[in-house]
């Protein structure tokens, strides 16, 4: 297990370095720079701006200097927000995204897993069809449709919540529900599929033959194997959910990392693009590793392979 962890950590570091390097050069080759604006500035101003941010140096010097700083934990200054550093921006925004992400994850799991189990257990009954319909709706209706509809009904029509913002505790409810619902749908489908596969296996039949109650069969014997596909999915999904969703953060006016992730690319804010990419990539790798570990722990076959 230790060797497995060490190998995966090494792979992650190499992958991260490749991602940072590719992103570093790709953002610089995209037309339009951080200081390209509608109103032209004098050549002196342009030259001074480049000098201030070190963009006047050869590309390889910029790259090595950036890597050196990143290794010391310094992600550099933001090019768009003159007085802020990337560390500060991510430090301010990430906790908000984590709050939103954890609430949404809780919503997603508490809807997706029980409904998925119910659909599998009551296969081809109205309960299965109803749960599957919920899953289809969650997958096929995008958050930019569900979000505004939820605001119109619950905030404007009923007046239960604010339309947008991130000030009071109740401001967490609608965005978490909308984002959670979007992730609940694939969790429901994966749970249903996983459970159906497990419930058809010999050891389940044996358990039933030994007289185990249906609840015990499903929850103790079935869930352990049935949730394996969900756990694999949860690695990247949790990373996505934690780094926020641009759409949800824009609709609900949430100051999270998701908005920075997209707007930094459109602003050509090179350092902020790289900072958010590093955060996103690190999270995906860490959470994938975690889901692999949980998978190994739950699945004896995988344990033997490692």
């Amino acid at each position: 297990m230790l060797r497995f962890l060490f190998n995966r950590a090494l792979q992650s570091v190499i992958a991260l370095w490749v991602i940072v390097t590719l992103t570093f050069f790709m953002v610089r080759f995209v037309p339009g720079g951080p200081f390209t604006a509608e109103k032209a500035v004098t050549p002196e101003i342009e030259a001074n701006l480049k000098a201030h941010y070190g963009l006047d140096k050869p590309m390889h010097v910029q790259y090595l200097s950036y890597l050196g700083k990143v290794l010391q934990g310094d992600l550099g200054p933001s090019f768009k927000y003159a007085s802020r550093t990337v560390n500060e921006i991510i430090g301010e925004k990430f906790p908000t995204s984590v709050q939103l992400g954890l609430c949404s994850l809780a919503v997603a799991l508490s809807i997706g897993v029980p409904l998925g189990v119910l659909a599998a257990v009551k296969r081809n009954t109205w309960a299965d069809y109803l749960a599957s319909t919920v899953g289809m709706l969650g997958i096929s209706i995008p958050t930019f449709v569900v979000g505004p509809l939820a605001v119109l009904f619950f905030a404007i029509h009923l007046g239960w919540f604010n339309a947008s913002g991130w000030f009071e505790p109740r401001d967490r409810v609608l965005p978490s529900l909308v984002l959670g619902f979007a992730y609940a749908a694939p969790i429901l489908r994966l749970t249903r599929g996983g459970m159906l596969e497990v419930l058809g296996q010999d050891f389940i039949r044996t358990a039933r033959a030994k007289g185990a109650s249906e609840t015990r069969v499903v929850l103790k014997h079935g869930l352990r194997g049935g949730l394996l596909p969900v756990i694999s999915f949860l690695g990247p999904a949790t990373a996505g959910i934690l780094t926020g969703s641009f759409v949800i953060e824009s609709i609900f006016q949430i100051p999270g990392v998701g908005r920075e992730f997209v707007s930094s690319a459109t602003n050509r804010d090179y350092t902020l693009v790289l900072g958010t990419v590093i955060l996103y990539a690190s999270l995906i790798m860490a959470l994938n590793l975690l889901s692999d570990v949980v998978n190994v722990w739950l699945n004896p076959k995988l344990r033997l392979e490692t």
Partner: protein
Amino acid sequence: MQIVRRLPLLIMALAACLAGQLSAQPKILNVGNGAEPQDLDPQVITGVPEHHLMIALNEGLIGMAKDGAHTEGALAERWTISEDGRVYTFFLRKEAKWSNGDPLTAHDFVRSYQRLLTATLAADYSYMLFVVKGAEDYLRGKLADFSQTGFQALDDHTLEITLSKRTPFFINSLTHYSWYPVHIPTIEKHGGLKRKGSPWTRPENIVTNGPFRLKEWIPNKIITVERNPHYWDAKTVLLDGINFFPIELTDTEERMFRAGQLDITNEIPPAKIAVYQKRSPELIKIDPYCGVYFYRINVTRKPLDDKRVRKALALAIDRELLVKMVSRGGQLPAYSIVPPGVADYTPKYRLEGTVEDAKRLLAEAGYPNGKGFPRVELLYNTLETHRALAEAIQQMWKKNLGVEIGLVNQEWKVYLDSQKMSNFQIQRAGWIGDYVDPHVFLDLWETGNRNNNTLWGNPKYDALLEKSLDAKDDEERYAIYQEMEGILIDELPVLPIYFYTRPRLQSTRLINYRTTFLDNYPWKYVDLKQ
């Protein structure tokens, strides 16, 4: 029994208490403010959302008056202008103070302008000061001694500014935030004067001089300002504070307005304008905005190098239909370059002609009914309204002239790169004035101007522009501008489409709020019904 007798008295006392409590409620205005500001340093920022914040936090020599149409003395109590129109002497208000209580003096202005012209600060708007003697040379390093420039503090309360030319629009240009003073000791304490981007603008550090002072700034969430007790005109300020919400999605903003979270929106989704006009006309305000939407033409590319082709394209556009059916924000169809009503200037030359004239001109250029017209592309940046306009105009050109124009869509920064390199044939564009004067819309088209990008130039036009700065009065100057517009309308390096408006939603609780031509109404005059 005694209690019953005293009941009315008790009720009255209770009512008085409640009324007292109600009147003690702070008056806080909630404003949708578009994008998150780049910074709160008036010498570093460039955008419109920042401008709204600047006029709450800072003040310059000249400000906008309560009527929203004229300028008035702000930190300058009065001023004199020398006979040759080059030397302006400003007499500052002796009671003017910074938000930390420090006195505000003429030396603060001089040191602020020196900072703005410091090359390493790389301030985009430093060119606004180039009208002053020696300013450009100082920035470019040709002049080392700042005391040799036209900025002089004659004493603590007298500031003298000497211009290189007469520049009749100088006073109007002073309303722009690039002319605001900054608190030098604070900047020195937090990173120095030569450095761009330092934490001096954080709520815990910032010192300003406007009607409000910064209370809270949570990026992408809220910027809160509160009354500045040291402001020289604090008695005029009616609001207790303003919350500025950075909201980029107009739909989100509109929903927040409907839920009562906002009193003023920055914009309104175009599709909702007609709905509000029909159902709640009292909530929607459409005001003129000092800008023109136009199509820029690269005059070096065939067949657009022929002015007859450009004119044919210009005449084949039905502007009335465009503003009524496509843009739908109450915009005015544009037949000239300078928007109507800019500093009382009225364009004399207008784009005139019928579709038949357009067909005739195109035939004269060698393309009867569009036959043989080469492939031409129209470039626009990704935005629904630009796409809709481009498609409508594409159809008008096809129907009226028989020419096929291709549409090319580019992401904003890619589009700007194409513009900068003049890498386009026809490009949609817009220009909003930094100050209210026709000069802003005409100096753009000077040969080699970095914002021209059409590669068009005309020596007569350039000479007239130069001459306009030496004009004795506005009458003489405007006559020159009219002549210049005549050249533009004849040669059409740009095709004017419409003049901008500023549609927005406003709560009926608002008192005294109106937009100015530049959309920078002074917050100190605004009030809120309780």
